[in-house]
């Protein structure tokens, strides 16, 4: 269980995190989504006790990050961005050090090392120096570091950067498996990443949560509106009657209207779903003597929500 209670963090005059609150239950995978500099890493650093919040606090499994950092650190595993590792050690030496630091010894340590080596697919490089590892193996060694003590809380900062598509699928499957009994927070600026693994998503911008919900809720939100891109040929000089178009059945409003290099009219319309708006547009074009070249329905994707919310000065 992860609880963030009104977290704020200020670096000098920059407010990196502003009044962020959320909870993550166990057995839940939550994604923090946002452009670079939105405050994802800062939130994670506060949760892992590496940074004090300016205001607010957080509780990890009931332990307060300000009052009892040692207990917090014991029950969480953290993979920082870019998986920093000691390049002067071998994978074995490194994981051995982490296991010692986590207080594992004897058979418990041996079985923990075997488990993470297996889970993260590290056996081919187990005795190699970290310096010679590829980005993919480094990322997996970092993940093994976070998993070695089988923590109840997992905090992963961009866990799949630098991996090839095959490895990404593997790591996602691992995260999904781990997420069945742990609380997992992962951050990403890659939307597919979050869509593929997370049950719930927080979209962050300029330190605030600007949108949140389950994937289902987001998808329902997507269906709330249908965008239609229409390209039309018009006889030169004849005026286009937008008013009639906008008052047609099923048409909400005109989103954009431009003329391209070939003299075609390109417009984007917002339609009420399943109200026959497409037909109305067609009829309107025919009545106005224009020829429709293409009509492409655009579903509002998570990407569009993300882009519109994370533009500077987005509505709260």
């Amino acid at each position, binding site marked *: 269980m992860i609880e963030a209670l009104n977290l704020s963090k200020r*670096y000098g005059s920059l407010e990196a995190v502003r009044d962020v609150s959320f909870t993550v239950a166990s057995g839940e995978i939550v994604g923090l989504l946002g452009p670079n500099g939105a405050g994802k890493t800062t939130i994670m*650093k506060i949760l*892992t*006790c*590496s*940074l*004090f919040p300016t205001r607010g606090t957080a509780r990890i499994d009931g332990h307060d990050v300000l009052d009892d950092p*040692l207990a917090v*650190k*014991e029950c*969480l595993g*953290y993979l*920082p*961005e*870019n998986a*920093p*590792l*000691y*390049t*002067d*050690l071998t994978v074995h*030496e490194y994981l051995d*050090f*982490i296991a*010692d*630091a*986590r*207080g594992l010894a004897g058979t418990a340590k041996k079985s923990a090392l075997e488990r993470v080596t297996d889970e993260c697919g590290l056996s081919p490089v187990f005795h190699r*120096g970290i310096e010679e590892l590829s980005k993919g193996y480094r990322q997996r060694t*970092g993940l093994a*570091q976070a998993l070695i003590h089988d923590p109840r809380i997992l905090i992963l900062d961009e866990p799949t950067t630098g991996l090839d598509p095959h490895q990404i699928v593997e790591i996602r499957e691992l995260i999904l498996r781990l997420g069945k009994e742990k609380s997992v927070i992962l951050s990403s600026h890659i939307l597919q990443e979050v869509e593929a693994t997370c049950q719930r998503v927080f979209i962050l911008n300029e330190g605030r949560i600007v949108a949140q919900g389950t994937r289902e809720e987001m998808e329902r939100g997507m269906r709330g509106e249908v965008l239609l891109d229409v390209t039309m040929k018009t006889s030169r000089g004849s005026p286009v009657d937008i008013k009639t178009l906008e008052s047609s059945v099923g048409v909400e409003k005109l989103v954009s209207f431009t003329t391209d290099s070939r003299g075609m009219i390109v417009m984007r319309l917002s339609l009420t779903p399943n109200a026959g708006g497409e037909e109305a547009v067609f009829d309107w074009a025919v009545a106005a003597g224009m020829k429709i070249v293409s009509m492409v329905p655009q579903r509002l994707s998570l990407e569009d929500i993300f882009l519109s919310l994370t533009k500077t000065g987005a509505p709260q």
Partner: protein
Amino acid sequence: MKTLVIARRELRAAVNSPIAIIVAVAYLVFTSAWLFFRNQFFARNEASLEIYFQIIPVVFVFLIPALTMRSWAEEKRMGTLEVLLTLPFRESQVVMGKFWGAFGLLAAVVVLSIPLPVTLSRLGAFDPGQIIGQYIGVLLIGAAGCAVGLFVSSLCKNQVAAYILSGLTLLTVTLLGSLGQLLSLSGWFSRVLTFISFMPHYESWNRGIIDTRDALYFLLVTALFLYLNARALVARKSA
């Protein structure tokens, strides 16, 4: 126990890199060359190693920064500090671990030099008590130097900067006492300079005088800088 885990990692990393060997070889070659060539040990015909131990603080000015420069600066640059600080340790335990790692390596290098007095002891009536005192002095000034070097490294993000800054700091505190004599200062200012400088406290050990105040001085300097180091780690969190 937890400090040992960190100290062991530090030592492993140092042994895997060429730094440990470079420091050991540089120490042994330089101190021996100083004794036998520069100061003509055999020609002097004295059963004393004071000359040998006199130069060690100066050698430390160059070698201790090499042992401590990476400790924090490199962890910050590589980002590994993020992981280290989320392991279940207190800041003080992490600092102590780093200290024992650096000091352990330095002590190992000093131990490697023990064959020298042992070999020479056959040649004349050396005072074994004085030599033991000299080694204690070396370890004390080495511990204080490591604490200073670690603290400076905790303020830097670049190991070259850490090396130069801690070298300059050590040079200053080592030779500060001589500055008073050099400028023929007198009075309280000169006494303060002599008091805060490493060298005068080390010299009494070198002359074979065992004074608890000189031991206490180095232990306090070590403790002070380790404490400042831990404070710097905590302060980083509220940056």
